[in-house]
């Protein structure tokens, strides 16, 4: 069966997925220390959605509940939703561009690069603002783009990026950058908690301005990558073949790198380093729906959103009232998955 023969099936499943995401958002918003009933949660959320809000009244719901939900829980969950979607799509596009199933922004060190950029700004340039905007996302972007460039050039052999060299250079760069971040932590004890947040990943500082920043960057970027998902398929044939099929390989690679890196930088500057999402989600989607990126990219975005909301909710409810950094939860899921992929690659190599 090919993509066009199954298109209507994919559409139906996607609609069900979007519905499922809505349910997950409502249920996740309901979890928390303050006791708010599921029905109230649903009503409060719906009261903020245009059109639907005409049919909803918030009579009998405590004002504090509304504030907790709308200003604390909802931005956090929407942030987890977009971060999950963005990281999964970035993972998918890295895997396509590197022709390497193990590529992921965390494993390649790109997330650490962004975190280092953000840390440097936080420690040294905290007062500097650019038209009222914090410099943190910009410096995260610079850190991420330099790291991508470094890792790619260390790893590549000609135009190919073998699995082994990519992983090794990613691990090496990752170590180097994390060490620099730790070093900066020891010199700046005043900021230590904030910096720990970058290195472990957390949504605990989520605010509506983060949600807006992320929305503005990730939604157009994901749309852009979806438009080019057919080209990403072709890239998997190898660069020479892709070129002979009419793809401007170098230009295409550059666009995808820049857009993916931009997303990683935005994600890291609001939530820190959250690993393995870009690995777990696209591969799980491929196991269900096959390898066509026209399917993998939209479903990864959806699956990533659901996955990270669930991980974040777990991080909030396992040890109440304290929180576990969400990066730890994703790593607990991610590392066995990574080993499984390595094992599969090994079996193929024999």
């Amino acid at each position: 069966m090919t993509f066009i023969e199954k298109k209507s099936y994919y559409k139906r499943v996607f609609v069900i997925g979007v519905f499922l995401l809505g349910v997950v958002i409502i249920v996740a918003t309901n979890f928390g220390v303050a006791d708010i009933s599921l029905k109230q949660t649903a009503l409060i959320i719906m009261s903020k959605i245009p059109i639907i809000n005409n049919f909803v009244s918030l009579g009998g719901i405590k004002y504090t509940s509304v504030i907790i939900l709308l200003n604390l829980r909802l931005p956090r969950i929407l942030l987890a939703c977009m971060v999950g979607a963005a990281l999964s799509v970035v993972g998918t596009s890295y895997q396509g561009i590197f022709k390497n199933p193990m590529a992921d922004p965390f494993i390649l060190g790109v997330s650490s690069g962004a975190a280092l950029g953000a840390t440097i700004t936080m420690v040294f340039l905290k007062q500097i603002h650019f038209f009222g905007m914090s410099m943190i996302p910009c410096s995260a972007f610079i850190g991420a783009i330099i790291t991508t460039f470094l890792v790619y050039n260390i790893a590549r052999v000609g135009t190919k990026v073998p699995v082994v060299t990519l992983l090794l250079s990613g691990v090496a760069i990752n170590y180097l950058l994390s060490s620099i971040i730790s070093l900066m932590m020891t010199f700046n004890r005043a900021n230590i908690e904030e910096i720990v947040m970058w290195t472990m990943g957390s949504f605990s500082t989520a605010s509506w301005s983060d949600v807006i920043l992320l929305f503005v960057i990730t939604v157009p970027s994901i749309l852009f990558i979806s438009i080019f998902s057919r080209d990403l398929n072709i890239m998997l044939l190898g660069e020479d073949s892709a070129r002979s099929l009419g793809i401007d390989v170098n230009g295409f690679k550059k666009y995808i790198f820049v857009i993916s890196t931009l997303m990683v930088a935005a994600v890291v500057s609001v939530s820190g380093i959250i690993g393995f999402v870009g690995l777990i989600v696209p591969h799980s989607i491929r196991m269900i729906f096959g390898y066509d990126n026209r399917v993998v990219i939209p479903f990864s975005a959806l699956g990533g959103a659901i996955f990270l909301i669930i991980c974040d909710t777990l991080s909030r409810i396992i040890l109440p009232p304290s929180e576990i950094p969400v990066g730890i939860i994703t790593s607990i899921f991610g590392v066995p998955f990574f080993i499984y992929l390595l094992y599969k690659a090994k079996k193929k190599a024999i």
Partner: protein
Amino acid sequence: MIEINNVCFSYEREILKNININIERGKFYTILGPNGSGKTTLLRILSKSLNIDKGEIFIDEKELTQIKTKVLAKEMAVVPQCTEIEFDFSVQDIVLMGRTPHIPRFCAESEKDMEIAKNAMEITNIWEFRNKSINTLSGGERQRVVVARAIAQETGIILLDEPISHLDIHHQIEIMNQLKQLNKNKNITIIAVLHDLNIAAAYGDHIILMHDQRVYKDGTPEEVLTEDIIGKVYGLEVYITKNPKTGKTFIMPF
């Protein structure tokens, strides 16, 4: 019509020195030569995978560097040497990818694209395993898939880099016959790098023999494949006769 004028290419060392070739439409060309003589590089500069240092290449009087990648893809298909793919696409998906240059940005493959891909798969005898994953196939089957993709691309020129190197003798002849059919029936120009001198003699209208990074001899099989030339290029003593069944040049090393 492809014109290659005074082309040089080097990468750490000189790989192509002063190449001059004229390729006519509708003919079957084979490129021969010992390992490392520059055959693959010649194909890669033709497909714009490598940029030349000196000289010019014209396709139908247009300079190659002036032709957009997408336009070139409608004119020339490439079957590469390495057909390994990391991700498990189905045979049908891979063949459909040949339609890429013909599909506009915001569209998916049409019924017509499916029909053309089906036809290409039937020509190469892979239709019965169209739903199999590409990575479960043998090297020879995979090579036929890539040839089918090039056919589905519907171009006037097909470049092939050792398309039959992984195949057994039966499939070698099958692929070569299919290429000959395309060449005859659809007037497609075929340019194939080969190793087997006898197959080149049997199928090629024209042989380009590379030696020491240059074109050593360029002409019909009878002109190129002589005892003297093969002795010089391959350092091999051969006896040349005619294949009694086909009348084509036949080379026997001894």
